[in-house]
């Protein structure tokens, strides 16, 4: 008997009296074959969430099963593309449907006509196991795509194509598996988006993801293979921070998931990343970026899928031995999508209407980050950076609190910093990173004093926070000179070091050696002044030397390419203060 629609409520559709479907199976709903997923199977009803707008559906229209879960299509052509939440190519959709997204589109994710230059790396008679590479092709000038045996397959090669030009669906090799079956492999494989791709083992995270943002790299670093959350109210700069990291971080590939966010922001990423040239490779940033866009007015069920699609693509490239950074903006919208579907299913709500399974869904997602040894012996990593948009900027709400339990790096964006246009508005007092110790060796290899300088900067800020409590009560004038000096030095740290201008050509990305030298200057200035105070120099004389202003502006005055100028600045500080000392 044909399966038909029994009820419709927003994106939730039910079919009555059927036992044909399995949990999480992908189905086609209605005459227009809208894409949906089975989310509940009971004796009397099968519940389906539909990834597209259900307007116009009728009771009694058919539902078709596919026998498989919702899968991502993996193969060359993913990089520099833009997809919707269920990996439909938005660029090709424009050709078919015009400027507005229409329902029932079943476009293949990849360009089927494009000819790739393929190098086949196996020959007849080779024995292959899951994860082994059988051919490679330059996907973009930056990324060599490696086609790998699906993780659960192994066998002997019975045919291998010659090197040459092939389309993604052409057969590259044939494989005889253990049970004697012969399989044809193209450059494409499919993988269920809600299932993590397997790896040989996890490795410790000892290398940082270098972002060129001083407050992150130096104070609150994240490791490759780590997970970080960026919570912040509206207007605190979550998106700008994610854009900055996506532009400058030293991952090989960026997966940018716009989950329930603004359409114009996705357009901005598309346009800006196409124009921006990566200084390391001299290629546009789009050559290493994949975009997944489920804007806030697209169907809500696909919002949940967009997160899983993104991480599945990331894991696939990780398996080739690449380092991937995922920007998920914003995980709160994903959680709200869960809440909305849960509400339509009339499930018992937990905190603030969110379903009780919110924490387990969040942890499943963040656990897919990691630095791993792949099945084929290479190493790769997936780093997740998830934005969180707490309601009413209240960090005690369920999504922020639950996320905090599953990430080791927390970059809290602060409203008052954002109001003062202090960007990135990462609050150094309430943010933390558990990776600091794991990464200490790496930083000390750049220079043995790196972590010591970092600690000193952190201490100055800590001290300032304490002193400001007093200043708020009685004013700054009554403080002794050495404490006034601490406050002024902390100001240099805040304005000159932590504050970073994303629109300034040099300041937008600062390499680690420059970050270290800037800390060094501040440290020398602080200690030199402190010593001078002890010999009897008056604080106002030190301030009148203009050194503090110079230190505040060194980020602009000294270009990234001329770090030797720092020596001059340090000796200027030494000389000028020594001259004061001599005058006492």
């Amino acid at each position, binding site marked *: 008997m044909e399966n038909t629609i029994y*009820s419709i409520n927003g994106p939730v559709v039910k079919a009555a009296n059927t036992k044909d479907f399995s949990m999480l199976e992908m189905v086609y709903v209605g005459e227009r074959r809208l894409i949906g997923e089975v989310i509940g199977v009971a004796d009397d009803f099968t519940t389906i969430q539909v990834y597209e*707008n259900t307007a116009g559906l009728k009771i009694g229209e058919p539902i078709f099963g596919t026998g498989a879960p919702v899968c991502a299509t993996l193969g060359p052509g993913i990089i520099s593309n833009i997809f919707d939440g269920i990996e439909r190519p938005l660029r090709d959709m424009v050709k078919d449907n015009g400027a507005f997204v229409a329902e029932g589109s079943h476009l293949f994710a990849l360009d089927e006509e494009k000819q790739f230059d393929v190098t086949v790396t196996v020959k007849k008679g080779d024995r292959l196991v899951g994860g082994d590479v059988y051919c490679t092709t330059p996907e973009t000038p930056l990324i060599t795509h490696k086609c790998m045996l699906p993780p659960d397959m192994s066998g002997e090669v019975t045919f291998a194509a010659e090197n040459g030009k092939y389309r993604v669906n052409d057969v590259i090799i044939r494989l005889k598996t253990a049970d004697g079956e012969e399989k044809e492999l193209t450059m494409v494989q499919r993988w269920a988006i809600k299932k993590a791709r397997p790896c040989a083992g996890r490795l410790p995270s000892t290398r940082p993801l270098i972002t060129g943002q001083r407050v992150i790299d130096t104070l609150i670093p994240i490791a490759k293979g780590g997970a970080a959350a960026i919570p912040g109210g*509206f207007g605190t700069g979550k998106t700008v921070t994610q854009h900055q990291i996506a532009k400058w971080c030293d991952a090989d590939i960026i997966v940018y998931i716009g989950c329930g966010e603004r*359409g*114009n922001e996705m357009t901005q990423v*598309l346009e*800006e990343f196409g124009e921006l040239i990566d200084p390391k490779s001299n290629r546009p940033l789009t050559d290493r970026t994949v975009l997944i866009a489920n804007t806030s007015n697209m169907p809500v069920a696909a919002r949940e899928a967009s997160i899983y699609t993104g991480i599945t693509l990331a894991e696939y490239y990780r398996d080739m031995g690449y380092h991937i950074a995922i920007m998920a903006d914003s995980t709160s*919208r994903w959680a709200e999508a869960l*809440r909305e579907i849960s509400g339509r299913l009339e499930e018992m709500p937990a905190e603030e209407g969110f379903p009780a399974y919110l924490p387990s869904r969040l942890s499943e997602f963040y656990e897919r980050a990691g630095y791993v040894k792949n099945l084929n012996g290479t190493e790769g990593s997936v780093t997740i950076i998830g934005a969180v948009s707490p309601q009413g900027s209240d960090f005690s709400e369920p999504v922020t609190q639950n996320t905090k339990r599953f990430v080791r790096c927390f970059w809290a964006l602060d409203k008052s910093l954002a109001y003062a246009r202090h960007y990135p508005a990462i609050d150094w007092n309430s943010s933390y990173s558990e990776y600091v110790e794991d990464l200490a060796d790496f930083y000390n290899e750049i220079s043995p004093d790196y972590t010591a300088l970092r600690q000193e900067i952190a201490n100055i800020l800590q001290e300032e926070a304490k002193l400001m409590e007093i*200043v708020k009560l009685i004013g700054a004038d009554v403080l002794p000179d050495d404490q006034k000096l601490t406050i002024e030095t902390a100001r240099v740290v805040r304005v000159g070091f932590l504050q970073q201008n994303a629109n300034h050509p040099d300041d937008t990305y600062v390499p680690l050696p420059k970050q270290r030298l800037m800390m060094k200057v501040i440290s020398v200035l602080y200690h030199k002044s402190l010593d001078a105070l002890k010999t009897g120099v008056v604080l106002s004389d030190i301030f009148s030397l203009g050194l503090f202003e110079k230190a505040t502006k060194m980020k602009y005055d000294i270009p990234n390419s001329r770090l030797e100028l720092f020596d001059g600045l340090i000796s200027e500080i030494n000389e000028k203060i020594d001259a004061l000392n001599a005058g006492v």
Partner: protein
Amino acid sequence: MSVQYVGLTDINGPLVALDGVKGAAYDEIAKIRLDDGSERIGRVVQMEGEKVILQVFEGTNGISLKNTRTIFSGKPLEIPLSPEILGRVFNGAGKPIDGLGDVFPEKMGDVNGRALNPYSRDYPQNYIHTGVSSIDALMTLIRGQKLPIFSGSGMLHNKLAVQIVKQAKITGEGAKDFGVVFAAMGVQNDVADYFRRSFEDTGAIERVCMFLNLSSDPIIERLLTPLCALTAAEYLAFEKNMHILVIMTDMTSYCEALREFSSSKGEIPGRKGYPGYLYSNLAAIYERAGIVKGSSGSVTQIPILTMPNDDITHPIPDLTAYITEGQIVFDRELDRKGIYPGVSVLLSLSRLMKDGIGEGFTRTDHSAVSNQLFAAYARVQDARSLASVIGEDELSEADRAYMKFGKLFEEHFLNQGFDENRTLDETLDLGWDLLCTLPRNELDRIDEKLLEEKYNPERAMKFM
């Protein structure tokens, strides 16, 4: 002859239920004919087996279980569109109420709209000159942006909206193809009248298309008002290549109507009783701003909402600001001081501003001036809170300079007349004059070269 369903099985608030229906489609429109000959419009909001739940736009007053005949149209709600809708007045459901008869449609538009493919969007970069200093300099409005005004009851947000419409000027080509779509949701009759009169006085009425749902009109119609207005705006912008400014007031009434509707449907409430899908629902409205590749028009939105109890963390302003590209926030204290427009500079923001100002758009020093004004005004707040504890006399010299700067900034920069249309040069130069009241070493957001050129303490003399 279409099938008519006689009678209903249930009536609950604005919702009615029918049984035994075959072949109805989700979200389609149905006509409900009453025995007295009047006709109402309903929309399918839920279906289960042969039971269908309809939402009735005009309300269910006078409907009984027996006195209706329902006909399903097979189509979603559509409104007639033609360039002639400019200058016309419609009700919230898109029916003409100005007595000028029906619109002769060039085409019919589905009010639900569809999501714009991000690949088809053009990133908004051209600014709209409003002649209001605080907006032009500090939270620049960009063509294709959605920039809401957050206000409170009793403040002068409507006046500002009218001033923006009156003075808004688009630079460059296409400047003359400018139109306004005005959507009133749940506003009082005299507010709607104020807008209509203001548009007439300024001669803008020919280029304004109004959709009015007054506070006494049915709430379900209120839920349609922004959809109709934006359908008209999209048509004018993307098919007729006009620059359309959409003003929607008051979004708070809209959200309250949504809450009322949701609770009568028996849905599980989220925060403060608003439905869990409030974010998606608002996004479906706000995201209909933008610029589409292949068309020279644009839809720019200025939604106005009154924050309940002036609380910016209330779900309505909170969710709105998460979707829109910035916000203009009114401040009760400035308003009381008699400063118009009383814009709270620190809480306000335009996200698209950074790419639409500076060389080639406004003036090269624009971003430096606005950054420094923001930073300086933030320091003013610190100085003021310190002064309230230790007294103004005890402040350091720098803090006293900031106290003075704050006062001058509010009186001269923020404050401006309803008829005062400042050019961008006037605005930015005024900003420089004010910055010159501060010691030079305090201006840490401006690079040396620019300071050398512009900083001159004598400029501050005009305020003495």
